[in-house]
């Protein structure tokens, strides 16, 4: 199809109402009729411009005589064309309507996957500062964080400071530990100085290992850390003996499995956890600090758990100067 364009007083006037279908490399030409201003000009060039994904792109094509082949355009609804020549200012653009072809809004599966990957990278590179994010306070807080959305790209490394406070408060990620394992991402709390309410009211079934060595840095300990959390399993808590536990496991009625490493040096309560396994109970007992000569601390279990303790376990607990409560 040949599109006729008149150049009058540096304006491109498109004759008729031609429509270009996107995606055609050789289907269209344009023939220009120039006014007397262009009689003595040198070689002329047509500039074609269109919007592609929000950016205006262009292609220059030299005229052959007064005719030029229109380059293929994609995913646009308007093509602008103007002409310029050495020694003469360019024309104002003329406009030609375009319609998208079958090729415009479709993509191959690999193109689709590439697009998905690009979108994923764009979000997580920013949200995690290309892996350099220092603090995750409230980073995944709230019911909007679900399995579908929680897909961190980089390791969650919590540095010194208020970095873990309320991190997963109220989130609806069904299994944080499993999600991280599948993604190949680790949660590193070794330097974290604040873990208050970190998993408060979260709906996760399993919580990954937490190194609480620095959790007392800001004087809060594991306060409300698992308050009303629905977790069945806490993989491991690595605890220093000066760590304090205020309402740490309050409302943890589903808690079955917990493993300790380090030393429990202050009163701790599992009063709301009737499902603690024998192994979990023993792990607690094994890591109680020997408080002989010091002020007694209390170890509180749910009545169901306490009623299953053996005489030997009770003797071990009390011999370390811990008062057993249930």
């Amino acid at each position, binding site marked *: 199809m040949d599109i006729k364009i008149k150049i009058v007083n540096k304006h491109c006037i498109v004759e008729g109402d031609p429509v270009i279908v996107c995606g055609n490399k050789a289907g269209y030409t344009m023939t220009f009729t120039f006014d007397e201003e262009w009689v003595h000009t040198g070689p002329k060039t047509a500039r074609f411009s269109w919007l592609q994904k929000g950016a205006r792109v262009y292609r220059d094509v030299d005229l052959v005589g007064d005719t030029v082949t229109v380059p293929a355009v994609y995913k646009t609804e308007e093509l602008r064309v103007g002409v310029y020549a050495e020694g003469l200012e360019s024309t104002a653009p003329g406009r030609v309507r375009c319609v998208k072809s079958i090729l415009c809004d479709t993509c191959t599966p690999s193109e689709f996957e590439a697009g998905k990957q690009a979108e994923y990278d764009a979000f997580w590179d920013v949200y995690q500062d290309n892996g350099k994010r220092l603090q995750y306070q409230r980073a995944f807080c709230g019911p909007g964080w679900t399995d579908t959305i929680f897909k961190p790209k980089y390791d969650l490394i919590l540095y010194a400071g208020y970095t873990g406070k*309320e991190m997963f408060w109220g989130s609806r990620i069904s299994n944080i530990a499993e999600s991280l394992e599948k993604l190949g991402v680790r949660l590193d709390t070794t330097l974290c100085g604040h873990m208050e309410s970190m998993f408060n*009211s979260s709906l996760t079934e399993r919580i990954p290992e937490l190194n609480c060595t620095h959790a007392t840095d800001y004087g809060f300990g594991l306060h*409300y850390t698992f308050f009303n959390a629905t977790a069945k399993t806490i993989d491991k808590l690595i605890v220093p003996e000066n760590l304090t536990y205020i*309402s740490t496991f309050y409302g943890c009625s589903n808690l079955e499995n917990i493993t300790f490493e380090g030393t429990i040096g202050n009163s701790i309560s599992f009063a709301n956890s009737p499902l603690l396994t024998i192994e979990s109970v023993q792990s607690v007992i094994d890591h109680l600090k020997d408080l002989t000569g010091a*002020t007694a601390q209390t170890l509180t279990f749910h*009545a169901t758990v*306490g009623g299953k303790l053996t005489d030997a376990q*009770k003797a071990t607990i009390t011999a370390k100067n811990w*008062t057993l409560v249930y």
Partner: protein
Amino acid sequence: MTKETVKIIKLTASEGMTLTNGEAFGKTIYLGANDKAESWHEITDAEAEELQKVEELEV
């Protein structure tokens, strides 16, 4: 083989009552080696329930 006689002091709350030292609450208490029975006193179950309520923090 070693043989030891271990003495553990056990406190049991009266019916309808709960034992507390002001921080921990329970029906059955096994005192730590250096803890004292005087540190614990009885309150009603209703009082204990009220005192153990923990308000949820606001985000």
